[in-house]
């Protein structure tokens, strides 16, 4: 926040209240979270036209512009396709507070899926994490689950299986 003293006669007006929103997840996403809660497993969906499997499941395959129906269960195992260790502070627009840093942001290809799942990986030492390593999801305790992406606490590197 700047004060009058910073700019002489030039003032600023500050605003820092996040506005509330309530987004509809839809049938497909809701099913994904139900499977996480009931069975701690991933569910994807296959496009009948191009054969691509998407996780989380969604109503449409964008390039084909086709509606999707074929649900597929997927194992709790994935490969790190890309990652970054975030090391600078910023306010989280979801909470209005600084997000805790450092944390590792990763793109994970779940076995059997063709797209990438974004989440966090519980390793922040760049010497101990590499593209190609295998990871598995660690879930929250069932009673803590709220039906959102954070029901997956993080992904953990499965050591000894580096490709």
């Amino acid at each position, binding site marked *: 926040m700047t004060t009058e003293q910073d700019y002489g006669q030039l003032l600023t007006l500050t605003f820092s209240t996040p506005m509330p929103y309530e987004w509809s997840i839809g049938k497909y996403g809701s099913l994904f979270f139900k499977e996480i809660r009931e069975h701690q497993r991933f569910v994807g969906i296959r496009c009948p036209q191009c054969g691509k499997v998407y996780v989380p499941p969604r109503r449409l395959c964008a390039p084909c512009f086709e509606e999707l129906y074929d649900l597929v269960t997927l194992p709790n195992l994935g490969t790190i*396709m890309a990652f970054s260790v975030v090391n600078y502070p910023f306010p*989280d627009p979801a909470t209005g507070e600084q997000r805790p840093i450092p944390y590792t942001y990763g793109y994970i290809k779940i076995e059997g899926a063709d797209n990438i799942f974004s989440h966090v990986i519980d390793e922040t030492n760049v010497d101990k994490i590499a593209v190609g390593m295998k990871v598995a999801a660690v879930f929250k305790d069932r009673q803590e689950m709220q039906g959102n992406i954070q029901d997956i606490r993080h992904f953990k590197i499965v050591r000894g299986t580096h490709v």
Partner: protein
Amino acid sequence: MSRRVAIVGTGQTDHRSHRPDVNGREMIYEAVKRALADCESSIQDIDAVVIGNMDHFESINYVDTWSVEGSGAVMKPIMKVTTGGTTGTSVAIAAYYHVASGLFDRVLAIGWEKNSESDTTAAIITCSDPIWDRFSYSGAIPSLATEASAYMKQYGATQEDAARVAVRDRTHALNNPHAHLRKPITVEDVMASPMLAYPIKLLDVCPRTDGAAAVVFAADGIAQQIAPKPAWIKACAVRHTYTWFGDVDYTAGLVSLQEASREAYQQAGIGNPADDIDVAELYLPYSYAGLKWIEDLGFCRRGEGPTFIKEGHTDMGGKIPVNPSGGVISTNCIGATALLRVAEAALQVMGRAGQRQVPDVEVALATGFGGCFWSDVVILGAARP
């Protein structure tokens, strides 16, 4: 069949990290005034306006109406176009469409941003899917860092290779009186700068800037009366792909840029980009992009970006000078940034680039990048198509 269109004037503010002396619409006015002066026109000559910024960055949804005082668009047809980082080139291409359609003769394109008015990272995060991506997504830098980590793994490029790109752009900015950052840096400086998100360090990445740009597009027949050497639009292409970050294939390169440039090169009759293009203003928001995306543009083969840079082909005096303006790494007022690429490419063709002029420019390339790895390509030429 569309009619021929040329750029006849450009204007931009003197870009700074903070402009507390102006509000957004006043800053827009500065760029518009300069663009009109550049082509000796008045606002009465303008038939339509296209304007863009990242509207959630200043939290004003109706920027097209809110800014009419500064854009000069009172009681004129005006459209807001905002497409993330590609906003500036999308604005330029939309202005081109207005004139090419035959419906308007002189159209003003405006891009602007007061980055100082919000936390840029928090604002960018709101572009991500709130249910699936927003929890882990942390703004532009880490998603670019993820692309860099995949590229380094695939081709063995190093942090020093990328640093050379930042050094080049920051060196070029010394010739640009409008640029935000005008102090030279070395590879050692880049390597010593703080690590923001591995492998991107502070000096690998663009700044946050308050600034605006305006470009005047005119129709064939009219353009020649306004400018002695108009910059003709030879080709443009737009490729906006996925909205989910997880739908990007990190091993395929920047697919949207490959496709957009391929289409634009075909329209413009370009066979070998590094030979046929005289200067390129590329939207490179961080150093690693300068290695990878020139491969996607066909300047060199896959994996050869670092060597192409190291051999000096993209320096002033090189085979294909890149970013004589200093590029995005020297100035980044996001809604204006891609429009600045078009404006700077136009200045090169028009022979008005002053100290940053590349000699004898016949063909110039401008690109826009943004959102979830989307791309726009614009090719300008000195010869009427």
